[in-house]
């Protein structure tokens, strides 16, 4: 319900939600660019990702402060309160996703000019999957679509399978070619960062369910944590 009597809350919440959408866009770009810097061995692009993370961090603080002010001044209750609390959690998840993108970019700088160990087939799929999951979770949040949010958890299982396959392959390479261990480790770090993005998207999906139902529940209890 968008009641005229709560117009001040609705107006200020709309600003917060717009900022959240901006933050989502920045994260999506950061993830895409960090992978591009890895695939293309582009240290300049990697440095840009690292530098631009500060913009994401500032936006997170802006949203947190505005949410704090909204709670203190407009005293939201019920769904309104859950929406604000959920956003305060979600911006932390988004900001950490920015850190994961920065993690990939930093690894690219560490790799230097060394040739790539193997083609990035599965990693590329992981990045695409992570970006799709993120977009889905934000759409589910905006539309308060619980069913869409719950499906995200299943996709995180797919993400974990990719990661496990990459992990096994890289450990095998390290066992067979000890000289390649540093390069394999760099790739493993990158894959781990992408896998963590999937976990954080799942956390966002959990908050979407919380907004709609008030229930706090884990959507994806992993059989085996790696």
């Amino acid at each position: 319900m968008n009641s005229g009597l709560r117009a001040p809350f609705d107006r200020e919440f709309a600003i917060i939600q717009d900022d959240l959408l901006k933050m989502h866009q920045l994260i999506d770009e950061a993830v895409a660019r960090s992978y591009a810097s890895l695939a293309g061995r582009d240290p300049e692009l990697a440095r840009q990702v690292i530098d631009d993370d500060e913009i994401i961090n500032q936006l997170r603080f802006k949203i947190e402060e505005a949410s704090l002010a909204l709670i203190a001044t407009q005293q939201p209750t019920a769904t309104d309160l859950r929406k604000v609390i959920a956003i305060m959690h979600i911006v932390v998840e988004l900001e950490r996703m920015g850190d994961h993108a920065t993690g990939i970019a930093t690894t690219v700088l560490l790799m230097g000019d060394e040739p790539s160990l193997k083609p990035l087939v599965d990693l590329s799929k992981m990045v695409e999957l992570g970006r799709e999951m993120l977009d889905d979770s934000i759409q589910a949040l905006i539309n308060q679509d619980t069913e869409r949010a719950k499906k995200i958890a299943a996709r995180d299982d797919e993400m974990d399978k990719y990661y496990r396959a990459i992990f096994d392959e890289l450990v095998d390479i390290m066992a067979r070619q000890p000289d390649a261990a540093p390069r394999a480790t760099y790739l493993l770090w990158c894959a781990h960062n992408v896998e963590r993005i999937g976990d954080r998207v799942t956390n966002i999906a959990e908050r979407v369910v919380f907004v709609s139902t008030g229930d706090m529940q884990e959507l994806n209890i992993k059989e085996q944590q790696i």
Partner: protein
Amino acid sequence: MTWCKILGMKSSGNHAKVEVRDLDFYYGHFKALSDISLTIRQNEITALIGPSGCGKSTFLRCINRMNDTISGTRIVGEVLIDGKDIYQDGIDLADLRRRVGMVFQKPNPFPQSIFDNVAFGPRVLGQVNNRRRLKEVVEESLKAVALIDQVRDSLDESALNLSLGEQQRLCLARVLAVRPEIILMDEPCSALDPIDTLRIEELMLRLKNDYTIVIVTHNMQQAARVSDRTGLFWLGELVEFDITNNIFTRPQEQRTEDYISGRVG
């Protein structure tokens, strides 16, 4: 990132409509207000909060010299509206109170028709000379307080038949009818239920585009919801005065923190 940036407000704010400087106020020998200095800005809502007897209503009445009607009172210091001291000799009190209207705690419509209540001010002040224009002023004022739709067909009926919330909006319309610049509101919602309270708050937010509003309230949540700036009064002193978001999220004074957190006494 400051609150001002988040809210799109300038830290310095709008034009200083009312400037109070070094104000002391006495009821006989009792000093009710001590050394109050603050600036009320145009087109903003300024809320004054504090425990009973802290001086916030006394302060409010200093802005339109309503305290003059109480014998034995005395004021030291200055209250300037648009830079002019309202306590200097030669001030036209009737004109001052037209410019600075007031709404009280309990709705106080006159025992007259709805129309006559709103028309009262323009008639007494001779602002309107013909019936057609008077009708326009009454209808504009009732429209401004979102009451016109309910009373359009009952303008000749007694104002006392309205609900409390409607009566309070009528009193606000009565103030608006004389085209004031500043509206003082002394606990305007304390007799109203939560929905009527939100209606008044919604009105205030709309009216601040055209007026400067000062509200005294016991309801801290109301001050938080509706105002741009908030001042905390305590035993006749102004403890803290700041942008409302700051007061309710990061007050600088321990007494403010204690009061707004309910940790008093």
